């Protein structure tokens, strides 16, 4: 009996001990894991948690921590998805609601945008008021944007570059010479120290990379590549000296970088500088800098060099390109106009993306375009560089492969981009007054207009057209004061992207010494610029001379000017003045407002910390503040020669009517929006009628038309002082032979202008 008792005792004891040891080891593990986790040593913590998971499967806490550890690793993030999914699925009381946010971020990285958005919304719903959800909103918008970008993904081949022995060349920050003969890149060792490698292109592929020898005096400081000159003879380095980084240049010779010198102080400041791109003609430097005076973070600057080798002051590329976040890795394409760069401040599909912008005018850059998926990924994409023939590009992505290495990515670009871009410029003989003009392109097959024509503002005279290939087009140039000009264009069936520059010159031809011009000439110069063979530039001149009796048109304009009688103008001024007075009266009531109420309500709300009242106040307030509009520009008395016309709209009327047709609504709203957003724009409203009926009645009718347009603008919130009114009665601009021409005469011309030389 006793023995039995003892036996039972032993068994119980041993069970107890085993259990104890087991639970102790679990407890130990948990403690160590949590300790590492709290110290942000996620890789270490992960080992313990994984061990725990094998001992105690299906433990929610362990799954959550494994998921979170993976989330915090550098390159295994995606593995966290399964664990976090498990946690959320079994977490009935939402203790781990934070997991929603992390899972959302992982889904985004993994291109599962809809799932990511769902998860973020769930997080927002569950989050407490003190949790910040501001970042979440921005990630949701990134996801939404990424969805669209991925939908229109590019047809490109992306490969990782390999050496002749079919070994992947790993590294980051690739720079190639324009002829694609040399590639320079960096590799980081475990201590994040960078070493520069280079490779030479053989017939069958890249040679095995070698380490670039660098002058010992420089080598002490941490350095990296900043850029390569297009001819491949000069290497730029970023060298860190204490807290600042400066750009140096060295000559490349026989696998070594020699005679390294610090670049001019126009480029180097007391802040971080790096990432240089030198234009093909070596006159412009683009670089990234953190200096003060920028828009925040790293900004891209440009420095020009004149013939004597003097540097200009650095110019910030402006708010279109630089944001408060980072803009890095400029790469100026060989046309000296197209700039590629990386940024995390523009619309991104995740992290840094690569963008393209075009230098349209001096110091003016077009809105950067995200170059799209799959080149841009949800991770950081940077260091974009292109070969001169435009066929291949190289760049880096912050993703490691199965061996833990970064790969240099190589894209073949000439697929699928076979549209032709025609960029052009309209010039007049008398360069002071560039006329209003319009370009219409008609597809000869379908007889329909082509949409992708960007008519310019008349101040620059520049335009842009994008035309599909293998088609014939009619180009119609309508310029004010010139007769329409038709030109045939044939875009051949082509395999790659073409750019075409076109220049249209408008000039009046004077016969003999007679002062009056009696003819006009439109000259169209086409420069076909084939970027695949950029050495050869074909010039094709098409001279078209168009003679017509010009005196008739001229006398017509003269008449138009003469009919601007002052009585009518005064009448109009009186009318618009009465509208101004009406508005001013309502402004006067503003002044009589009772501010006691406002101040007291706010005081009471703060006293009682009543946020609802404050919110309500905010909602009720008129935000489009009239105060900032108070700077009244005297549009009315501005000289005609000082008006720069931005855009125009013709409103056509039915006979004897001054009611604006609804079909103009959309165009109208566009103008209203434009004028509202730009306080320095004025509106010129000029009314006409056809020649049917009594001349005086027509005169009054054209006035009524002007007034109804004015009223429409005023009712949309445009201040009357911004409108300049004129009416001319019967218009003889078009010969009234057909009803269509009559209709053309029954119009109000709305022109939006800016005053120059104010």
């Amino acid at each position, binding site marked *: 009996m006793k023995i039995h008792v003892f036996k039972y005792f032993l068994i119980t004891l041993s069970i107890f001990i085993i259990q104890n040891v087991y639970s102790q080891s679990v407890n130990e593990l948990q403690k160590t894991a949590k300790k590492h986790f709290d110290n942000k040593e996620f890789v270490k913590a992960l080992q313990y948690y994984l061990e725990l998971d094998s001992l105690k499967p299906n433990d929610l806490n362990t799954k959550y921590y494994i998921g979170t550890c993976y989330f915090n690793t550098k390159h295994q993030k995606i593995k966290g998805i399964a664990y976090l999914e498990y946690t959320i699925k079994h977490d009935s009381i939402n203790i781990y609601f934070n997991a929603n946010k992390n899972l959302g971020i992982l889904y985004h990285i993994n291109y599962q945008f809809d799932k990511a958005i769902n998860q973020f919304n769930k997080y927002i719903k569950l989050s407490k008021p003190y949790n910040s959800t501001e970042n979440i909103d921005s990630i949701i918008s990134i996801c939404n944007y990424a969805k669209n970008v991925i939908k229109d993904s590019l047809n490109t081949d992306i490969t990782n570059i390999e050496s002749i022995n079919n070994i992947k060349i790993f590294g980051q920050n690739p720079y190639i010479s324009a002829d694609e003969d040399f590639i320079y890149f960096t590799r980081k060792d475990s201590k994040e120290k960078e070493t520069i490698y280079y490779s030479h292109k053989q017939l069958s592929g890249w040679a095995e990379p070698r380490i670039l020898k660098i002058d010992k005096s420089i080598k002490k400081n941490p350095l990296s590549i900043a850029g390569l000159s297009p001819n491949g003879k000069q290497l730029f380095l970023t060298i860190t000296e204490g807290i600042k980084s400066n750009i140096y240049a060295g000559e490349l010779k026989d696998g070594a970088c020699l005679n390294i010198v610090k670049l001019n102080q126009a480029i180097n400041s007391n802040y971080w500088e790096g990432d240089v791109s030198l234009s093909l003609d070596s006159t412009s430097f683009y670089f990234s800098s953190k200096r*003060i*005076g920028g*828009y*925040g973070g790293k900004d891209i600057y440009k420095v020009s060099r004149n013939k004597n080798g003097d540097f200009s002051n650095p110019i910030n590329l402006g708010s279109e390109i630089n944001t*408060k976040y980072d803009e890095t890795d400029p790469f100026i394409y060989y046309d000296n106009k197209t700039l590629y760069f990386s940024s995390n401040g523009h619309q991104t599909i995740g992290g840094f993306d690569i963008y393209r912008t075009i230098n349209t005018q001096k110091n003016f850059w077009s809105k950067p375009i995200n170059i799209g998926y799959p080149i841009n990924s949800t991770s950081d994409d940077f260091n974009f560089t292109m070969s001169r023939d435009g066929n291949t590009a190289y760049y880096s992505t912050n993703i490691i492969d199965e061996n833990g290495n970064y790969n240099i990515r190589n894209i073949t670009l000439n697929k699928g981009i076979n549209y032709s871009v025609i960029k052009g410029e309209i010039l007049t003989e008398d360069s002071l007054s560039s006329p209003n003009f319009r370009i219409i392109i008609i597809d000869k097959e379908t007889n329909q207009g082509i949409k992708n024509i960007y008519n310019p503002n008349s101040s620059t005279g520049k335009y842009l057209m994008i035309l599909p290939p293998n088609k014939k087009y009619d180009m119609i140039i309508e310029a004010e004061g010139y007769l329409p000009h038709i030109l045939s264009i044939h875009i051949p069936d082509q395999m790659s992207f073409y750019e075409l520059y076109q220049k249209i010159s408008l000039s009046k031809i004077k016969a003999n010494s007679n002062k009056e011009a009696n003819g006009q000439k439109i000259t169209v110069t086409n420069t076909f610029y084939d970027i695949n063979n950029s050495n050869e530039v074909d010039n094709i001149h098409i001279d078209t001379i168009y003679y017509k009796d010009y005196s008739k048109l001229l006398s017509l304009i003269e008449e138009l000017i003469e009919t601007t009688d002052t009585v009518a103008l005064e009448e109009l001024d009186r009318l618009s003045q009465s509208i101004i007075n009406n508005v001013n009266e309502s402004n006067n009531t503003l*002044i009589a*407002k*009772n*501010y006691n*109420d*406002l*101040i007291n*309500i*706010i*005081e009471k709300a*703060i*006293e009682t*910390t009543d*946020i609802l*009242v*404050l*919110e*309500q*106040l*905010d909602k*009720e*307030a*008129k*935000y489009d*503040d*009239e*105060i*900032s509009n*108070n*700077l009244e520009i005297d549009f009315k008395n501005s000289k005609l020669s000082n008006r720069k016309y931005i855009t125009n709209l013709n409103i056509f009327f039915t006979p004897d009517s001054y009611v604006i047709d609804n079909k103009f609504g959309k165009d109208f709203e566009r103008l209203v929006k434009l004028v509202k957003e730009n306080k320095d724009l004025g509106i010129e409203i000029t009314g006409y009628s056809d020649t049917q009926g009594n001349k005086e009645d027509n005169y009054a009718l054209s006035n009524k038309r002007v007034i109804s347009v004015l009223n429409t603008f005023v009712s949309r919130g445009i201040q009357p002082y911004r409108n300049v009114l004129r009416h001319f009665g019967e218009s003889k601009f078009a010969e009234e032979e057909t009803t269509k021409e009559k209709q053309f005469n029954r119009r109000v011309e709305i022109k939006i202008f800016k005053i120059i030389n104010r």
Partner: protein
Amino acid sequence: MRLIIKKYYLILVKVLFVLFLMQSFSYKVLAQQYTEHELKAAYLYNFGKFVQWPSISSKYFQIGVYGNKQFISTLTRTIGDRSLNGKRIQILYFPTIEEISNCNILFISKVTPDELKKILIKTSEKSILTVGDSVEDFCIEGGMINFTSRNSKFRFYINNYSAEKQKLIISSKLLSLGKIITNENKF
């Protein structure tokens, strides 16, 4: 009969009360519509009530404006001839950073990040309540109160650390209405 009248009277009172409640729930706070700047001017005046200055030696309570000159007229109109801390309010306009002098509240609008930095350096040693007109990174750079842009969850951001450093005491009521930003939020 009198009882019935009394009963109806009570019901009427109740109905009126309910109506009043309904009214106050679907309320419109003000009969008139105010502009954004008027609203900000009124806030600015009230900041003066809910912030304590160490001591005001000048004759007037001074509100300075840098940036948006047009705001002056709104501010003058809104504040009228009110006083703060027992002193008449004087409104000052500073066209340049150099001209920014001692004042009690400085309203900063339409500034570049560089200008902001310079202004904040200039005011850092003085007990000036700096108020930003939706200036980006205002509080992170060390400004004290920044109006947020419209439809933001908070009316304003407050950097109480900066205020305390410059010996200003912001009322806890005001603090509870704004989002607290510290200099550590910088990155």
